[in-house]
């Protein structure tokens, strides 16, 4: 039955209470130590034997996100297969802050001599750690800054996004395409521009509507953003997010077309999948590890700013889905062949949303200029926050 509150006199003395607090904390502390001690392996000194390196991978999100991190993880699997005697360390959900430095330091303590930080935002932290450990090699995915022992690489996936845009432009009936974007950074803006230009090249009336979710992976926002776009009669949905399932499955259940990014997710959208862009990092990563092992890192292209184009095989066009008609397949495959031969789909004139000419007639910008994009091309509906 209900017990009334006990009178003060039976209250425990503050000292005794504190002792009990401490007792609990000590007990829990020991328990933690025991639990973790049993589960962990202690760091081993770096093995200098070839093929027996310790290699570390960092992902900004979960490795099975059906998107960016999954593509990077697939690359790490290729490395594992190619170097069976190497020890692979992995950390996922590593934020793009000084936390990443700590994770990298920990991997180095565990003997890592090659590190693959795979997110753009890991660049700053990686540069700091690189400075402190000149004997470790860093192969950073995505950035544009290097150091003596840090090289950075990426792929020109916006090239295949042009072809993907063509598929979208041909498939759409409403002439409205949708793009769910995480943040307004050059890489995402470039992809949207490529997509829209591709669509326009086969369908001059196609427009791309952009919504920013403000997060690389927030399924709640992704779902609402997708629904919002589809309510506006968008009938092809593309995205630039790290985790891709929600947008694709929302599009599929509402019966519209989907194009993909990062990985081949056609199994998620059996009816609506057209095509997409996907990464194949494996061969590149294996090659990089080999070069580092051979001691040829300095002076190799990987110690600098390395851009893999479509010809290298790092970027691929994802398989066509059932929704891709023969006409679409023909057009897109033709474009893909051009891309594989080295064509860059960004020849001027390119105008931004206000009509101003950003790339003059007949000029093709170089990679550096492209990757400084800060505007949307004409035909894109959406505002870039922070000015464009």
């Amino acid at each position, binding site marked *: *039955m*209900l017990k009334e509150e006990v009178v003060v006199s039976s209250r425990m003395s503050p000292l005794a209470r504190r002792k009990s607090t401490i007792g609990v904390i000590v007990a829990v502390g020991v328990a933690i130590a025991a639990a973790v001690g049993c589960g962990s392996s202690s760091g081993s000194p770096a093995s200098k034997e070839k093929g027996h390196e310790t290699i570390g991978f960092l992902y900004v*999100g*979960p490795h*099975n*996100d*059906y998107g960016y991190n*999954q593509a990077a993880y697939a690359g790490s699997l290729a490395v594992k297969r190619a170097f069976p005697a190497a020890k692979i360390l992995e950390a996922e*959900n590593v934020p793009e802050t000084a936390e990443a430095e700590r994770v990298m330091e920990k991997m180095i303590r565990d003997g890592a001599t090659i590190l693959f930080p795979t997110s753009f935002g890991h660049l700053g932290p990686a540069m700091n750690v690189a400075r402190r450990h000149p004997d470790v090699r860093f192969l950073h995915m995505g950035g544009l800054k290097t150091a003596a022992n840090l090289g950075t690489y990426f792929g020109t996936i916006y090239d295949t996004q042009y072809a993907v845009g063509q598929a979208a432009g041909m498939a759409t009936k409403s002439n409205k395409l*949708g793009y769910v974007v995480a943040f307004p950074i050059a890489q995402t803006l470039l992809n949207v521009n490529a997509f829209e230009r591709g669509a326009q090249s086969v369908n001059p009336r196609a427009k791309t*509507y*952009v*919504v*920013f*979710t*403000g997060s690389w*992976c*927030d*399924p*709640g*926002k*992704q*779902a*609402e*953003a997708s*629904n*919002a*776009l589809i*309510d*506006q009669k968008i009938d092809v949905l593309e995205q630039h997010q790290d*985790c891709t*399932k*929600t947008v694709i*499955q*929302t599009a599929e*259940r509402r019966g519209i077309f989907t194009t993909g990014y990062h990985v081949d997710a056609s199994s*998620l959208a059996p009816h609506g999948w057209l095509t997409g862009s996907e990464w194949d990092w494996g061969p590149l990563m294996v090659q990089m590890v080999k070069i580092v092992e051979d001691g040829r890192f300095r002076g190799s292209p990987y110690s600098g700013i390395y851009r893999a184009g479509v010809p290298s095989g790092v970027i691929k066009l994802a398989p066509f889905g059932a929704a891709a008609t023969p006409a679409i397949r023909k057009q897109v495959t033709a474009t893909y062949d051009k891309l594989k031969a080295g064509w860059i789909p960004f020849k001027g004139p390119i105008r931004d949303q206000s009509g101003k000419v950003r790339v003059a007639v007949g000029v093709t910008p170089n990679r550096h200029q492209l990757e400084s994009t800060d505007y949307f091309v004409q035909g894109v*509906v*959406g*505002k870039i*926050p*922070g000015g464009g």
Partner: protein
Amino acid sequence: MLLEDVLAGTVRSGISVLYAAEGELISERSGVINLGMEGCMLTGALAAFATASATGSLLLGVLAAAGGGALLALVHAVVVITCRANQLASGLAVSFLGLGLTSWLGAPYVSQSISPLNRVNIPVLSAVPFAGPVLFQHDVLTYMGLALGPLIWLFLYRTRAGLILRATGEDGAVAFAYGHSPTLVRYLAVVFGGMLAALGGAQLVLAYTLNWVENITVGRGFVAVALVIFAGWEPLRATVGAFVFGGSLALQLRLQARGVDVSPFLLNMAPYVLTLAILVVASRGRARRPPGEIRAVFGTSGPGSTRSAVDA
């Protein structure tokens, strides 16, 4: 049409918060504040998703969610009712527990898929222009959620059990005097509240995002607690509150899709700022009396508490 889309989107994004808010309302009406609702929502979401993906049965998923949420809420109940610990600290710890556990146990499920909980258009009503798409073209869990407000209102004000619940929240001693155990009532209320929040989490993943990642609720559980205060502990107003939140989320995305020139970051603030603003306005109106026992939790800072010296 924009208004229709926004309202339909409002229901879609607000319904999970609604479940959590109504659950919190029941708990607070019995005299216990549960800041662990975020943890309960996450637990429900993971339990539903994992079960549905493993067994293929959405129903089992929903049941698992209810069980998981109830279990986590039970922890909070034990710590604050039986052990008489501070409710706010315990609730926050429970949310952390839920976040940590679901991140850990849920990691393998990030890549899994489920067959979604699909929409069921209510015959005849769903064809009604405007009201049709807004209210009658949703999934089963949403329909249940929409009915929650009225159902809980009926329960609170038209049933004996509801009266006992309210009495316990006002003053446990009174309830005791009439032969009811405040302890039992509170346990039931907290556990049931956690269960409702878990169902909200289940709706979020089974019908809306169709996906699981860690921290998928991003704060909805906490917002629900605020909404209960905003609603003055009234179930129908809590429904409105949840839709204010959901609506601002839906609106800002649609404004973006139309190329409106406002920073998405500022637009993203809207749900929270709006909730805060409405809380402010609501507080200035006639004093919203919290259940008597809740005032003790807030101590000197009870909202609208007439006995508080601080606000005298």
